[in-house]
């Protein structure tokens, strides 16, 4: 049986939800899946990932090195384990940490790499990903081994497949690189939901008119059961929202189940960041706004009135 590895990103020792879709991507060819916990313990990782079909959890260590503060040494250790366990592919989340590690590992292994994949066929070495910032879909053939792919969060649906996984301790025989050191991790100022991994996103554009008014979207996000709040470039450039919240070509690429665009006209650059959302809802006063030509549900009206009404309806019916 062929083996595929999955980088499993953890926060506060909990596996991030979006990883389960990556595991589903690795399971498509019925491969035996090896999970590599990143930023968490093997025990905590095992409890979560075995529900989705993972067979082995690799408990990685390097003598004398602190893997969490040296991404180069962590990448070397994982690359060493990929060779040791003869994995034919390694998948991970296309998150900032995931794609950084995958690129480092691909470089060490002289392996082909495709990031931000929407679909992967590991048997054929064929991946589908965006090109031209989401304006086109590209099919790439990767040659060389192992195949290294970053999967766009939420692009592949997770599929439960419970089993009992084993923990495999592995002492990587690599030297600490010591060239990069994480000096400090600055936590987010508030407990926010990661935009790129959110199932529902409600975004505001220039007509939000102030940073203060984003409160209206946050209240609606809560009523939606914990949605994330995003912003258009126009709203970010006007200083109404931080760049972290920007969806679009020079911001984040998102792929939620539901995207609600409020007061966003729908520029090609904004669409580049959210067009793979399953359902797009647009609220705009201008019935000629281009976004109405490219969404699933369109509501012509004042965004504040509509969003407030939406919040009330959601609260009343939950």
């Amino acid at each position, binding site marked *: 049986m062929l083996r595929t590895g999955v980088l499993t990103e953890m926060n506060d020792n909990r596996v991030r939800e979006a990883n389960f879709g990556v595991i589903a991507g690795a399971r498509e060819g019925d491969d035996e899946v090896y999970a590599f916990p990143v930023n968490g313990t093997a025990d905590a990782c095992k409890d979560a990932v075995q529900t989705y079909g993972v067979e082995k959890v690799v408990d990685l260590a390097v003598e004398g090195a602190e893997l969490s503060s040296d991404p180069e040494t962590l990448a070397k250790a994982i690359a060493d384990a990929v060779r040791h366990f003869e994995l034919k592919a390694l998948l991970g989340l296309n998150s900032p940490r995931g794609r950084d590690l995958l690129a480092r590992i691909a470089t060490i292994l002289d392996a082909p790499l495709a990031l931000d994949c929407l679909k992967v066929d590991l048997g054929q070495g064929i991946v589908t990903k965006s090109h031209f910032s989401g*304006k086109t879909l590209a099919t790439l053939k990767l040659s060389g081994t192992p195949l290294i792919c970053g999967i766009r969060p939420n692009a592949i649906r997770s599929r439960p497949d419970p089993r009992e996984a084993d923990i495999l301790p592995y002492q990587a025989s690599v030297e600490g690189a010591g*060239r990069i050191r994480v000096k400090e991790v600055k936590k987010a100022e508030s407990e926010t939901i990661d935009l790129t991994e959110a199932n529902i996103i409600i975004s505001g554009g220039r007509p939000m008119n102030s940073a203060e008014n984003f409160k209206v979207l946050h209240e609606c996000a809560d009523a939606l059961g914990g949605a994330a709040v995003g912003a258009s470039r126009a709203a970010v450039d006007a200083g109404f929202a931080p*760049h972290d919240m920007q969806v679009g070509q020079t911001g984040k690429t998102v792929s939620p189940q539901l995207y609600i665009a409020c007061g966003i006209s729908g520029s090609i650059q904004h669409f580049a960041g959210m067009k793979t959302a399953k359902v797009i809802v647009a609220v705009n006063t201008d019935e000629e706004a281009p976004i109405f030509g490219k969404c*699933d549900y369109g509501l012509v009206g004042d965004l504040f009135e*509509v969003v407030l009404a*939406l919040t*009330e*309806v959601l609260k009343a019916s939950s």
Partner: protein
Amino acid sequence: MQIYVCLKHVPDTVAMINIVGDAGFDESVKFVMNPYDEYAVEEALKIVKQEGGEVIAVTVGKEAAASTIRYAMAMGAHRGIHIQADAQWVDSMVTSQALKKVIHADGTPDLIFTGKQSVDGEGMQTHYRLAAALDMPAVNEVTTFSIQEGKAVAEREVGGGEREMLEISLPCVVGASKGLNEPRYPKMTEIIKSKKKKIDQFNLADLGLETPAASSELLKLEEMPERGQAKMIGGSPKEMAEELVQRLREDAKVL
């Protein structure tokens, strides 16, 4: 300081991409410097202003890519290197080997900047491969950068608003993200001066690069699937909200 900035000449982000054949596109659209590379050029210029030295703009691209080098020079880069290729898509392993070869022959980099990714191929890997080829550390998606006590200090977002402060030994390769700085607009006098600056020319095919161990080949380009006609929902705000929630629950099943 000798700072190399690696650039890519790409279709303007507002350009419509018209697919030609299986995997080609109409290249008559306007091309510009890859937007993220502007942050890279600006950062290199800022450092050279403080520390002294020169900024060398390097690109692998077709003949027209020379205009991206000229743009970097109009921003203030001192000279340029153009490795001519006969296609818009050159595999990252080949590009990184070509960059390594010409940079190595040209000088001794103290720093190499580039954009975090190109906005056309979105590969996000050439700079990592270049760093490995030159045996330097790489950091990507950098939003603040400085040199302190002989080391690079960089900040990058790692998701959910969380940020990492990194200390990196020099020389290193840095991938610039939006927010790193405000790239300058070239002044007319600088644009005129840039025309006299030197661009060394190489041909990719003449560099004698070995065939890489891995590659990715573009088989097909397609339009992103568009949505059907939008369902417009009318009425008072309350009526619209009620109908929307019902449709999202019952038809789309996303709530």
